[in-house]
């Protein structure tokens, strides 16, 4: 953090988060996301007033149980993240966790994660599993705790404030080579779930692995995601949220905005940089600026969503 930023009061920092934060703010206008310069967004009072109540916050890749060099204390950084969310002037209606809740799928890790997450003031939390959550021999630990919403299938949908949320699982059925898979059953379910829904309904889709190919050699994508997109393109506002790669990557394609979230545990290298995926060791004073959450607000009148990423770096 620079000296200038360190002078920001907590209130100002939160205002920054709510109205701009670190990163680029995207505003959806007539089905097209338009990047707005943060400095402008922060000073544009009229625009800021229209941003509305935060709809939900996305937390991802908490990796409870990880204890290697890249972050020996992932409990602390998750706690910092929770403090950040709890400190928001207006609490989000719900929390979405896009997977890798734990590092090794151990019961004690899930228990600790649930204990830590229970400190969130927002109690409604929706999850999807990451491949680190389904790494137990019987693939039951995640489903024993979070399977109820989906009848243990891993995919489900719900509605909130007129927005339709679709939770998908793409970390089972791996094929050699490495991309995630949705599978025919899940795709058929999505088709049925969307049938008859008005094209003006804002859609939020979330899954652990990216639902678009970011970097195939590292498996950063989902092999049959294009079949999913075929079913989503008729909607005027589609927001696709993922985790897995521990960094923000965004893409806008027509009315569909793709966005991957930061981890609260440790960063990973940029696609194709270095030998491969895995925890990226950065100097300790840089770590918190690489960890964070995504908050999503709704502009009520235009029925569109605004994404905003915030790191847990403190002044």
């Amino acid at each position: 953090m620079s000296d200038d930023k360190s002078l920001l009061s907590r209130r100002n920092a939160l205002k920054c988060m709510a109205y701009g934060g670190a990163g680029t703010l995207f505003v959806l206008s007539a089905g097209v996301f338009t990047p707005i310069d943060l400095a402008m967004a922060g000073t544009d009072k009229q625009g800021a007033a229209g941003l509305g109540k935060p709809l939900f916050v996305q937390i991802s890749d908490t990796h409870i149980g990880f204890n290697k060099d890249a972050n020996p204390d992932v409990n602390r950084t998750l706690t910092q993240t929770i403090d950040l969310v709890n400190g928001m002037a207006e609490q989000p209606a719900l929390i979405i966790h896009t997977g890798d809740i734990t590092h090794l799928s151990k019961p004690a890790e899930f228990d600790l994660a649930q204990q830590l997450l229970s400190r969130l003031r927002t109690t409604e939390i929706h999850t999807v599993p990451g491949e680190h959550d389904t790494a137990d021999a019987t693939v039951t630990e995640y489903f024993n705790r979070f399977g109820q919403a989906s009848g243990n299938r891993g995919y489900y949908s719900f509605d909130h404030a007129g927005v339709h949320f679709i939770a998908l699982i793409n970390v089972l059925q791996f094929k050699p080579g490495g991309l995630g898979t949705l599978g025919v059953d899940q795709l058929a379910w999505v088709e049925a779930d969307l049938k008859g829904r008005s094209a003006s309904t804002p859609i939020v889709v979330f899954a652990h692995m990216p639902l678009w190919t970011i970097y195939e050699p590292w498996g950063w994508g989902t092999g049959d995601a294009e079949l999913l997109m075929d079913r989503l393109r008729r909607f005027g506002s589609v927001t696709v949220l993922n985790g897995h790669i521990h960094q923000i990557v965004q893409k806008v394609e027509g009315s569909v905005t793709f966005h991957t979230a930061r981890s609260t545990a440790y960063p990973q290298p940029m696609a194709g940089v270095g030998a491969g995926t895995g925890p990226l060791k950065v100097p300790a004073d840089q770590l918190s600026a690489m960890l964070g959450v995504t908050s999503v607000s709704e502009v009520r009148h235009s029925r569109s969503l605004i994404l905003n990423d915030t790191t847990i770096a403190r002044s």
Partner: protein
Amino acid sequence: MTRPYYRLWLTAVSGASLWLIATLWFGAVTRSHAEAAGSTRITMKDFMFSPVPLTVHAGSTVTWTNLDAEPHTAVSDTGLFRSGAMDTNESFSFKFDKPGAYRFICSIHPRMVGTIIVQ
């Protein structure tokens, strides 16, 4: 003039032979030892299974050991076996009773693939 050269040559030959015999013997011992110890072991290091493919006799128990800082798994593509997450230096074993080719991946890093051939 010939004798010393002949003697030197003899000495050289016998020395070389001894060296050769010793090398072969030690080599054989080392190799058979390696085969016995390595024949049922697979390590996971630098996001790779090694050695793969691995050939074993029916009835052998294969042990996977993770030497990476990242966790790995060994998951059969047919569902025959599935390890839990192996953290650094943790292992998983499975006994192969029937001949065949058994493919497996790491479910956390599915780029990691391997085959065990059971004879």
